């Protein structure tokens, strides 16, 4: 497995790097469930392009320093990661909270991104104050969260009885870090929507048709905040189309 490490600022990051491929690299930012090189879209996406995937601080084997507590922190860290990797420009792909990180990065340094793909991204607040834009996944039974997350929960839901201690630990650590980053304001940065107009690169917003966490209304409103955005729906997928429909997801990204 092409997994390496990178030290950025004082943070040790776990890094997947397919190493091969032509053209601009794809920097992929995973969602709240974390990343594994065995996930089915990885081989497809790295067939022709170099694919680089950091595990976010507090996910996988990446460290979580005590000063780090926001998506904004991670966005800064990853801009520096691009310097470390000598990436001048990349295509940036982000799923869910990874989409939020990607959006933050693009508002800070729009010139470094040729193209953005945001799949089921969170990060903005577009609806009224008395309704959560993103359902509170930490205040619902697991089965309900699975229904909101997957098109086909029976096929997709994790089987904890088959997981090793290390895998369980990674899962719980990811959940903890997700809470740290998203608890308040819930799943968004109130300032982000005032900055997204800076993102001039063509941006594709993807949504699985059964996504119960990111609604079509939310996605459309999010996309309207960027000057050069389009939207696309992936059928038979929920909040993680890269896992549920890896081929369709890869086709959309390429």
């Amino acid at each position, binding site marked *: 497995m092409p997994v390496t490490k990178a030290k950025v600022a004082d943070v040790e990051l776990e890094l997947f790097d397919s190493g091969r491929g032509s053209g601009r690299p794809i920097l992929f930012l995973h969602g709240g469930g974390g990343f594994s090189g065995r996930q089915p879209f990885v081989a497809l996406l790295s067939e022709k392009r170099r694919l680089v995937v950091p595990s976010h601080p507090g996910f996988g084997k990446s460290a979580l320093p005590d000063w780090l*507590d926001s998506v904004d922190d991670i966005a800064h860290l990853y801009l520096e990661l691009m310097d470390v990797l000598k990436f001048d420009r990349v295509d940036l792909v982000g799923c869910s909270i990874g989409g939020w990180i990607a959006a933050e990065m693009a508002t800070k340094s729009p010139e470094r991104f040729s193209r953005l793909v945001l799949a089921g991204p969170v990060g903005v607040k577009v609806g009224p104050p008395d309704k959560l834009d993103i359902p509170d996944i930490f205040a619902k039974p*697991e089965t309900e969260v699975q229904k909101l997350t997957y098109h086909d929960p029976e096929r997709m839901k994790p089987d904890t009885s088959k997981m090793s201690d290390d895998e369980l630990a990674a899962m719980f*650590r990811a959940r*903890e870090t997700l809470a740290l980053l998203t608890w308040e304001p819930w799943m968004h940065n109130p300032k982000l929507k005032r900055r997204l107009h800076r993102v001039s690169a063509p941006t594709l917003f993807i949504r699985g048709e059964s996504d119960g966490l990111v609604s079509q209304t939310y996605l459309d409103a999010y996309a309207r905040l960027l000057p050069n955005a389009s939207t696309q729906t992936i059928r038979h997928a929920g909040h993680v189309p890269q896992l549920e429909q890896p081929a369709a997801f890869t086709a959309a990204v390429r």
Partner: protein
Amino acid sequence: MRAWHFSENAYPYLPPADSYPSIRVSLPNRIYDPAKGAALYDRYIDEWLIAEEEGVEIMLNEHHQTATCVDPAAPLMLAALARLSKKARLLILGNPIANRRQPVRVAEEMAMIDVLSHGRLEAGFVRGVPYEVLPANSNPVRMNERHWEALDLIVKCWTHHDGPFSHEGRFFHHRSINIWPRTIQQPHPPIWVSSTSPSGAAQVGAHGYVQATFLTGFDNTKRIFESYRRGWREAGRGQDVPIDRLAYAALIYVGDTEARARAGAEKLLWYVTANKVPPYFSNPPGYVPVAMNVQLAKGAHNVVSVFGTKQATVEGAIEAGTMFAGTPDQVFEQIKKHWHHVGGYGNLLIMGQAGFLEHDDTVHGIRMFAREVYPRLKELFPDTTISGMTGQVAAAAI
């Protein structure tokens, strides 16, 4: 030995438990009848004052969005008690400072109550149970770090008397802190911290604060108290840890007959049986360490949930050391056994009212304890006792 009457101010008039998923956080407040609630406040305050008359100290706490404890702003109740009571020590256990945005405000509230009560405040601080994070919208990750920064800042608020000082910490920021009033008790009111984990207790011990633990039974309490003593000693506070630094909370009911004691004990179990809370409220991410969640996923008993299932019967709870109930002789023996097992404590926190334990029965329990058990405990376990030396104490007691 000091005993404290502790009442959670429960609202027990609820629909059948199978009609709602959780008694905490999400139970609609339309179920709460304010007229009944007002009568309950009157009654619970009366019971605290009766405990005071009987020579027992007063303890209260706070929870939020729950029928189990309708005291979401404990300092308000404490302010009322400061004026209504005359001599009892007033223990708030406690202020959930990891969930409160302004530690300085908490320092002000506590200082005001200390003055209002003419120096009777015992200021307790708690991390808060897991179901508190949603009502407070408080991030469950790094609560411990917030808790200690807040507590250190509160102590500084109480002990700094020379005009404004500033605090620019990891979690809290103030440019100009200069609280009025300052506390009567000098250098500050006694500080209590609750902890149900050994690592937490060691930290409390290092600070020398009073360590309280709730319903942790025999072996867990022993481990927690041992950790406290280790933390105390490692911080250079000396070899001997006085028992007045340690407190244990149990469900306690004393009756003049076995039958009456049994009936009272059954009603006290409401706290165990009524505490219906689903896992998504009782175990938010980050509240317990990753390693414990791994064990939980593999089927270990949730040690966070102090209301364990085996303690849902009177016999089971007595056996577990989470309840002391019976006639005065029986309760005295149960407490003695527990006291020796865990290494001794100087404070007994009495959960003496719950659910449908009516006023007369509650008062009976308070009086029977105060008159028939408490004097014996005070005699057997004087405040000068050193904790963790149970062998010697047991020998001396024979």
